[in-house]
């Protein structure tokens, strides 16, 4: 079997891997941002909830998160009379991954926000900005830049975690590899998985490169 054929077959699963990655990261960021916002409102009940959420996710294998989403969500929805059994599998994959990564992103955003120098906010107020603009112009961009290394690590972790959606029968790169290796009845299995690993590595290297470029652009912003 030719290496090129293996690559082409595995790449067939790339769109699924990428859509899962992008959508999960998007929703995880939404969850993370809103949880961080709730946490920082200093409402004790809300911050306790956020703490419990983070505590649970910290101890949950991503695989289990996906399984609970896949098997648990239909049961939850059935309670209120909605049948989601034949919703697309990617939906459950996105839910499982974004719930997991949302907790980590929440922590990244919150700790970054808290480490922005308070004087920056006061300076913004002192030149007459209102609270909203002080946040949008000064606090938020600085929070984002501080959180960037953590965001990068989390995104890379998410790339790797997308491989776990095989448990719900999604056809991503990883599933393509297992299928191919089963079809070949034990020949070239090592080669297939090495090529698969290289493909994931390539995606991760690309992400690292993008973040490096971004970082270089802002290299003089020392926060």
């Amino acid at each position, binding site marked *: 079997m030719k290496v090129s054929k293996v690559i082409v077959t595995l790449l067939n699963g790339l769109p699924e891997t990428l859509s899962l990655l992008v959508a999960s990261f998007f929703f995880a960021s939404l969850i993370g941002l809103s949880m961080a916002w709730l946490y920082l409102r200093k409402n004790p009940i809300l911050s306790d909830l956020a703490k419990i959420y983070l*505590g*649970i996710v*910290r*101890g*949950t*294998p*991503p*695989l*289990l998160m996906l*399984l*609970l989403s896949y*098997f*648990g969500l239909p*049961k939850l929805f*059935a*309670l209120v009379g909605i049948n989601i059994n034949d919703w697309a599998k990617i939906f459950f994959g996105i839910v499982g991954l974004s719930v997991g990564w949302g907790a980590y992103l929440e922590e990244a955003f919150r700790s970054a926000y808290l480490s922005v120098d308070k004087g920056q906010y006061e300076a913004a107020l002192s030149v007459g900005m209102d609270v909203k603009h002080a946040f949008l112009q000064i606090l938020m961009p600085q929070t984002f830049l501080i959180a960037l290394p953590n965001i990068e690590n989390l995104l*890379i972790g998410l790339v*790797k*975690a997308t*491989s*776990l959606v095989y448990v719900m029968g999604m056809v991503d790169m*990883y599933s393509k*590899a297992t299928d191919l290796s089963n079809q070949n009845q034990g020949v070239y*299995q*090592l080669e297939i*998985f*090495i090529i*698969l*690993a290289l493909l*994931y*590595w390539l*995606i*991760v*290297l690309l992400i690292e490169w993008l973040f490096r470029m971004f970082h270089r652009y802002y290299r003089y912003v020392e926060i």
Partner: protein
Amino acid sequence: MFDSNFAIQSFPKILAVAPMTIYLSIIAAIIGLVLAILIAVIRERKVFVLSPIVGIIVSFIRGTPIIVQMYVVYYGLPQLLIALQRWGINTDSSGISAIIVAITAYSLNAAANISESIRSAYHSVDYKQYEAAISVGMTPLRAMIRIIVPQLIANLIPNFSNIFIDLIKDTALVYNIGIVEIMAKANIISSVGFKYIETYLDALIIYIIICWIFAKLFQISEVIIRQRVFATQRIN
């Protein structure tokens, strides 16, 4: 809907295999730590040729899913041993158990991650005391062991704790190669009556408790080590 009786009955059965999860994680962490120290030394001392090669391997391991690594070892290790045999090195490839495969894969994975943490912990050590120790005549090696290493360990613990907890969670994948740990047991029990959610919730609770306990243990040990490090530094 949700069979709570079944969930309660299954819980002790799943808990009974938790030692396998913990065993795999601890062995992988220990082997990983030893390898990681080696890697960190090679990279920090910029050992000729070896350093860039090790750097690429670390990047590769950190850039690929653990489940893929596991299968690379699963299919690769026997072939490697056969190749070694051909070169006259006496190895027996027939006796490779799933446990060996898992420990190999997870140790390598841990080694790559821990080595990076060691390096960043090393870079965040305060050097003034090292220089002071050298200037009063301590040998560099002695100063390293007395001054740098304790601080390094204190800096390393939070990251090491995270890596260890990730290891525990990642072992949920070894059921794929036939090892019976928490996740495998949950699958086995539930496949009989298709009551998945019950056993998965059991597994969830067990994982959360295990991770919480280890996180606490690391926290406590960090506090103790920091006290020691600071105490000895004050005496110095």
